[in-house]
């Protein structure tokens, strides 16, 4: 026998044995259909890649959506910080106003006290100083 024929004989394909096809069929998902089957509109998942769309286009769309979502989140965070800063400034302004008013009240009280004198010999009686 020629060497090539010996090789051919040695490499004859073998059958995988009984029930191989059944083992394959058992691994198919119960609802799996070949990709020629027309999908029901209700059966198409929201995130499924539409038929005819290339994987590259789908990836591009997914990346764009991720970028847009990230940009939106950054914008919202910036707005939230700006609002916080505005509120802080309002509180500081209010505190400054309050402080100014208190100073004014203190100044008036001091001025009023300066106009009042203690009556000599009667520590309990006050006498308004005549300017």
């Amino acid at each position, binding site marked *: *026998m020629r060497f090539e024929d*010996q090789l051919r004989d040695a*490499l*004859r*394909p073998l059958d995988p044995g009984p029930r*191989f096809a059944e083992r394959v*069929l058992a691994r*198919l998902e119960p609802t799996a259909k070949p990709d*020629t089957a027309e999908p029901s509109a209700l059966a198409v998942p929201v995130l499924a890649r539409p038929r005819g769309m290339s994987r590259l286009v789908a990836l591009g769309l997914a990346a764009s959506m991720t970028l847009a979502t990230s940009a939106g989140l950054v914008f919202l965070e910036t707005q939230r910080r700006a609002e916080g800063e505005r509120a802080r400034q309002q509180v500081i302004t209010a505190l400054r106003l309050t402080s100014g008013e208190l100073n004014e009240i203190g100044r008036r009280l001091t001025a009023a006290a300066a106009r009042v004198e203690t009556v000599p010999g009667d520590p309990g009686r006050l006498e308004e100083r005549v300017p």
Partner: protein
Amino acid sequence: MALAAVPATSPPPATLERARRGDADAFGGLVRERQRLVFGLALNVLRDRALAEEVAQEVFLQLHRSLGSIESEAHLTHWLRRVTSHRAIDVARHRRHAELSGLDEAPEPWVVRRDADPLVGRTLRRLVAALPPRPRTVVVLRFQEDLEPAEIARVLDMPVNTVKSHLRRALAVLRARAGQALGGAEVTS
């Protein structure tokens, strides 16, 4: 594209069409008709029955998902040879180190073969399995499937001259090693 002849046992064309429409029985028929080709190819490349079974099942599961792109029976055969070969090469590459370190001691996988000469057959299969994955697959496609170098080139996405070169060198190595292992009387050039 010139594809290999459709095996005589191929199912009627309606079977492919029914399988494409989701008929599980028809798909089972396709599997039964082609399981020897796919499993045999994987087994001859991998020389491991469990791995070959796993590869063959994966190939048919991939076929089920790809039925819409299969245009004809001949295309189906070409597709199966192509996907099985590439998957088997990938698996063989991952386990190459183990093969190289323990091949000589590896027992014949549990298979029932009716070789003309069991010793020669077993030795040749062991020697083929010791070739690097791509030349090994070239040899298997040439001698299991009787493909011409141009057809092997299309299956493996390889230049025809590379296929011829792999074949020439692999045969020389196999002859020399078989001669050493078996003696000149059993191996005829």
